[in-house]
Structures are given as structure tokens and as C-alpha cells.
């Protein structure tokens, strides 16, 4: 089977797999297994999965380079949009269940509380990425500009981790784990950047040697 056909046929399966965390949460809700503070469970779960999907999305480029599987990029939009999906739900639980749609209170919160500021930043930065995720938008923006814009995911993921780190009371082990993963994935990009630059610098030399 060609990579093209594999991607095409596996996409629905990947899509369904991405729905599993939400499905499990809904099932817990239906069967009354969300515990004593269901709203907290919903908030934490959607927040966690936003970060996880951001990490998966950030892992695509390093993985396709390391494994030599360029077609992995074909799943990236989907995982990115699932990060946005969970981010939206996470934001909605906050706006609805915490602030009861009091936008004025929300604005005060965003201005006053660093962990909300960080979380809100992470969410807002995902908006243009989701809005420009279509093929049409890529064309309209042009590949280079689109790519530049979508580097905002680096900031969004970082802000997301800071948001988590700042909200826990004492046990920072879990946020630090996310921090390590995001740092590693961003570090990979730094390495790729330098490797590419070396290669580019090396190329003119090769040509020079070939001159008669």
C-alpha cells in the first residue's frame, strides 16, 4: 500500500482515536463517575488533553524527520484542531461554569491573575491557527507566511505549560513533565535549524569544488 493510500484510509481511524478522551469523559458523565466535583474533573481533563494534543502536534515535524516519514504531516492539521477543540471546551468550562458568562469578570481575571493570563494567551493564540487551517487559507496566505504564522503554536504550548505550572498548589511534577516534553520538542527544532543551516552553508562549497 502506498503512503498516500495509507494516509487516506487511516485518517478516519486516527480521527476516531482522537475522540476517545472526550468519549470517555462523556461516558463518565452519563454514568455518574465524575466524582464529587464533576466540574473540576471536566476542567482538568479538557485542559490536560489540550496540552497533550499540542504536544502530539509539535511532535509531528521532528518525528517525520527522524523516521523519514514525510507523510506524517498529513495528520498534523487534525491533531492541531483537536488541541483547539479541547482548548475551546476548557475555555468554555471556565467562562461558563466559573464565570457564568460574566465577560467583565473574565477580563478582570485575565488582567489580574497570571495563570489565567497565560492560559488565555495560549487559547487566543490558537484562534488564528484554527482559522487558517484550511487549504484555501494556506493558499491565500502563501506557504511561507502561513508557516511563520503557525509558529505561534510554540508560544501557545509554552503559555499552556506555564498556565498549568502557575495554578498548582505545591506538586509541580506533572506540569514539569509537560514542560520537559515541550522543551524537548522545541529543542528539536533548534537542532533541525542548525543542521539545515550547516547543510546550506556546506552546499556552495561542494559546487566550488566542482568548478573546473
Amino acid at each position, binding site marked *: 500500500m502506498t503512503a498516500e493510500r495509507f494516509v487516506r484510509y487511516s485518517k478516519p481511524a486516527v480521527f476516531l482515536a482522537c475522540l476517545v478522551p472526550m468519549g470517555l469523559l462523556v461516558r463518565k458523565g452519563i454514568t*455518574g463517575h465524575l*466524582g464529587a466535583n464533576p466540574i473540576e474533573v471536566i476542567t482538568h481533563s479538557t485542559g490536560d488533553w489540550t496540552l497533550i494534543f499540542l504536544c502530539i502536534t509539535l511532535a509531528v515535524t521532528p518525528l517525520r524527520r527522524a523516521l523519514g516519514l514525510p507523510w506524517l504531516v498529513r495528520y498534523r492539521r487534525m491533531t492541531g484542531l483537536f488541541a483547539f477543540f479541547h482548548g475551546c471546551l476548557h475555555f468554555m468550562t471556565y467562562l461558563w461554569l466559573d464565570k457564568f458568562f460574566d465577560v467583565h469578570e473574565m477580563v478582570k481575571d485575565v488582567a489580574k491573575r497570571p495563570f489565567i493570563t497565560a492560559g488565555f494567551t495560549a487559547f487566543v493564540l490558537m484562534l488564528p491557527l484554527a482559522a487558517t487551517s484550511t487549504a484555501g487559507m494556506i493558499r491565500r496566505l502563501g506557504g511561507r507566511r502561513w508557516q511563520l504564522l503557525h509558529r505561534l503554536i510554540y508560544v501557545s504550548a509554552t503559555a499552556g505549560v506555564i498556565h498549568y505550572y502557575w495554578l498548582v498548589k*505545591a506538586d509541580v511534577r506533572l506540569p514539569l513533565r509537560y514542560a520537559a516534553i515541550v522543551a524537548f520538542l522545541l529543542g528539536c527544532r533548534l537542532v533541525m535549524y542548525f543542521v539545515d543551516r550547516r547543510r546550506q552553508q556546506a552546499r556552495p562549497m561542494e559546487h566550488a569544488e566542482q568548478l573546473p
Partner: protein
Amino acid sequence: MLVKKQSDIRSSEITPQGICMNRRKFLAGAAAAGAVAFAGRAAGELLAPGRAWADGAKLNVTVKSQFSTTEKMNSLDEVTHYNNYYEFGTDKYSPAKYAQALRTSPWKVQVDGEVLKPKTFDIEDLQKLAPMEERIYRHRCVEGWSIVVPWNGYSLSTLINVVQPTSKAKYVQFLTALDTKSMIGAREPVLNWPYSEGLRLDEAMHPLTLLSFGMYGEELPKQNGAPVRTVIPWKYGFKCCKSIVRIKFLSSQPSTAWNMAAPSEYGFYSNVNPNVDHPRWSQATERRLGEFLKRKTLMFNGYDQVASLYNGMDLKKYY
């Protein structure tokens, strides 16, 4: 003594435990609207009936306290499956799972320091020091949630009067047991173990301050601090000390576990105060477990009778 305190909620509004569970039904409906949801929930309940834990022995509760609120109590299931007890893990669900490993019998509590009659009590003797009361208190966590719990115990002042503090005694320190064999959370340096808390002597002497041995008429479940804990209803929950092994009277203010972890966030007093925010989040509102909408947090958690303890004190400074 059966003096009924005037209440803001009529007793007809108090909902029995079973009906509290209706919240689940509501959530279920919201999550998946319609008949499918209700069928699913019914099936879920058949598969997972009310969770149980080792049944606590019944306590001989003889006094209904005048300090009790008439607000709707939380269910035993809620109160025993949503706990902060970092010695058994930092999430709310770990204590119910892991605390059962703690051995609470035999148990001794050493009471010493600036007292005329220091004594080490066997837990059975400590229990018998005064008639066991039922006190239904509001309990507000610094994280912004609250519960209503029927505790069983007696005023800490009873014990204090037995050991007779000297004139030098100004503070009381409480220490939680530290048994890293059973306390899997205490193997990690999340807090400065053993967990320690403290009160000013006049706070400790206040009749509201409870030395608790049980709740819902039974001995304390282990995740709630068996076999003995303090309950200080006008302070944030972490000011209560669970599974106490030592009570020490001091002339100077003791350090406390959360204050050592983050001095700017958790002060020595930590009175419930809607006007003094946690540096990272608001304390103006709280979510009562089982309720959908948040409610306003009350000054001193609604226990205004303690206000005189803090006359002339800037509670923004002494948070």
C-alpha cells in the same frame, strides 16, 4: 444542651442524602440529553453501586451542638472521595485509595511543651475526655470549594484545660503522623514532612475549634484524618491537622507546612476571607460540592463569632 441557632435556611429545605445525588442525574442529562443518557446512567448505577470503605465503628454521639449549621450536608460518599491529604498523594482521589494502609490502632497522642501536666494519651482515653458531639460545620478549602460535614468530637479547649498551659504558652502546634511505609505521598518532598499546623492559644481555646474523632456518627475514615484531627471551621481547610500524633504548646509562633512551602500564599492565620485573594486566584466565591453555581464566600466562613479574636488586626497583612 439543645439550643437551636437561628438559621438562614428552613429545615424543610434540607435535602436528605439520597436526593443530593440528583446532581448526577442533572449532569448526565446535560452531557448526553435524553433517554439514552438516563438509560446509560441506570446501567452505570447497577454496575457501580455506592462505593464502600472499611466501616468505621459507631461512636456514641450524645450531644447535638448549638454550633451546627442547618445547611444541607454533603453525602458521605462526597466527603470521603474528594480529599486533600498529601501524605497519600496530591490529587483528591488518592487518599481514598491509599490511606487505608495507615494503621490507626494502637495510636498515641503526645501533648506537651509549655503545659503543667504533659501527657501522652491513648486514643481511646482521648476519646472519652468529653461527651461526643455532633457539629455540622461548613468546611472551605483554600482552593475554592466547600463542603458541609457532620463532625463528631468535642472542643479542643477541653483537652487544653486538662493539660493546663503555663503562662508562657501562646501557641499550639499540631503534628501529623509520618509513616513513609504507608504514606506513599510522604515519600516525595512535596511538603516539609511531617505535616504541621498551628493556632494561637486563644484560637485553639475558642469553642468552635473541634478535636474530631469521627463524622456521620462513625469513627473518622482514614482519608479524613483518622483517628483524630482538628477542625477549625472559620479557617481554610489546610489549617486542620489530620492523624495527629503530637500537640505541643509553645511560647512563639510555630512554622506550618503550607507556610513553609509558599509563605506569600499561605499565612499563619489563613482565615476564610473573601476580601483577601490568594495571590493566584480569587477567594470571593466557592463551589459547594454538589452545586452547579458558585456561591459567595462568607467572612470567617460565616462564623462571625470569631471576629473578636482579630480585633485591631489588619487581616490583609495577617492573612
